[in-house]
Structure formats: structure tokens, C-alpha cells
């Protein structure tokens, strides 16, 4: 069974409680370990806060859309906003050092990149930006990939 769950919500941080809960519930159902569960939830929240803040600029009329695709052996999460995107190629080449205390910001993408197995950005001209997060799951989780506990 292709377990795809979609959730769409206005660009308001208030809704991130829901995202956190849904994410936790889906990942728990995939029988991931505790560390993996945390890594996925943290990364999805980072992607969503970027979508709300940088993508949709907190405009509540613009939605954020998250697609969770539970495939055998991996979980793919797509986070879409309606913004213009950014020059992610050059950003990814020079990700700032996260341990630098001079910087109060700029750790979101670093965290996603280091916690997930794959991170992809895509600008859909006139259509927003899509961030794709992938996590490989252990073999036992692959079989459970069909559903949620």
C-alpha cells in the first residue's frame, strides 16, 4: 500500500503543533527508532518554518502543503510553499558553520541536510518552492511502510 498523507494549512506558526503531531504519528507508525523519529520531526518543522517565514512570508492566505510518502524502505516528505524560492545551489555550497555563536540564524538547512538522507530543493516558477526530505528506513520498518500504527 502506498501510504500517502497530505496536510495543508495556512502560513501561521500556530499550525505547526498539528504538523509536529501528524509527523510524530506517521513516523511512529513506521517503526523507526527514537533518534530517527526525532530527526524526521525536527527536519519537517525546519522546512515548514522556512516555508511560512521565507516562502509565504507569513501571509495567511497562502497555504503550506506537506506530502508524506511512506514507501518501502524510505519516507519521503515534500514541503511546498507559494514563494519565489531562493538560490539554494550557492547556499548549499557555503552552508554556515552551525557552531558559530555569532550567527543567531542560518541553521535550518544545515540541520535538515545532516539529519536526513537526502535533501532536495526545487523552484516551480510561478508555483512556489518545494523542499523534499528523504529518510531511509531500516528493513523491518520497510514492511510497516504500508501504514501507521
Amino acid at each position, binding site marked *: 500500500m502506498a501510504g500517502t498523507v497530505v496536510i495543508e494549512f495556512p502560513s501561521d*506558526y500556530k499550525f*505547526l503543533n498539528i504538523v*509536529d503531531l501528524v509527523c510524530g504519528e506517521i513516523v511512529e507508525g513506521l517503526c523507526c527508532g527514537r533518534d530517527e523519529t526525532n530527526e524526521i520531526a525536527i527536519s519537517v518543522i*525546519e522546512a515548514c*518554518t522556512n516555508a511560512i517565514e521565507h516562502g509565504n512570508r507569513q501571509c495567511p492566505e497562502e497555504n503550506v502543503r506537506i506530502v508524506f510518502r511512506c514507501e518501502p524502505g524510505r519516507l519521503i516528505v515534500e514541503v511546498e510553499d507559494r514563494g519565489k524560492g531562493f538560490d539554494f545551489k550557492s547556499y548549499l555550497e557555503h552552508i554556515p558553520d*552551525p*557552531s558559530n555563536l555569532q550567527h543567531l540564524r542560518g541553521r*535550518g538547512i544545515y540541520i535538515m541536510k545532516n*539529519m536526513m538522507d537526502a535533501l532536495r530543493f526545487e523552484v516551480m516558477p510561478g508555483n512556489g518552492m518545494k523542499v523534499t526530505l528523504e529518510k531511509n528506513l531500516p528493513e523491518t520498518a520497510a514492511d510497516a511502510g504500508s501504514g501507521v500504527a
Partner: protein
Amino acid sequence: MRIVTREKSGVVILDLQGKLMGGPDAEAFKGTIRKLLDAGCRKIVVNLHDIDWINSTGMGILISGYTTMRRSGGDLRLLNVSDKIQSILYVTKLNMIFRCYGDENEAVESFETP
């Protein structure tokens, strides 16, 4: 986020509640730290027990508090760090910087031995 301030053996404990994620939270937190510094406080424990969730921007708020305190010869230490927050600290290597405690008395007493 809500911030409740209390004192224990010369250490100020900040109990944070809710989500810690930049925006207005950053101003509120900075304001609290500034007032405490003005009042002569140099030892702060931030209790994260009732934080529902945090993101990297929220982590930035803690960093700003930490650097402000250090610059004034004080310190800011963390109490009740959930595994999620621990993972963020770890991946960003900020675990090398923040001292974390699981017990309130231990956190307070940690200021006695330099």
C-alpha cells in the same frame, strides 16, 4: 512562549512554556535577560521542561542569551533538555557550548564549583 522567573540560591531559573521559535519570543527572551543583567544576576538556568517544541530559530534565542551572559562574565545553562532538543544541539555542535542538566538542584549547584 511564556517565561516565568524564579530564584534559587542566587541562581535565576527561567521556566519556559510553549514553543520556542524566534519572532516575538526572541524579543521577550532578550528583554528578560537584559533586565536580569541590570539587576546584577550572572547565573541563569533555562528550564526547557515545558517547551512543546523548538526549532533552529528558537535555538538562536538561547544562543543570544548565552553570549550576552558570557560577555558579562556570567553563564546560562540548560535544564530538562528533551531528546529532540538534545539532537538539535548535537547536530549543530552546540552541545559543546551549552551545559545541560537533568536535575534542577544539580543545575543550580553547578554554579558553585567553577
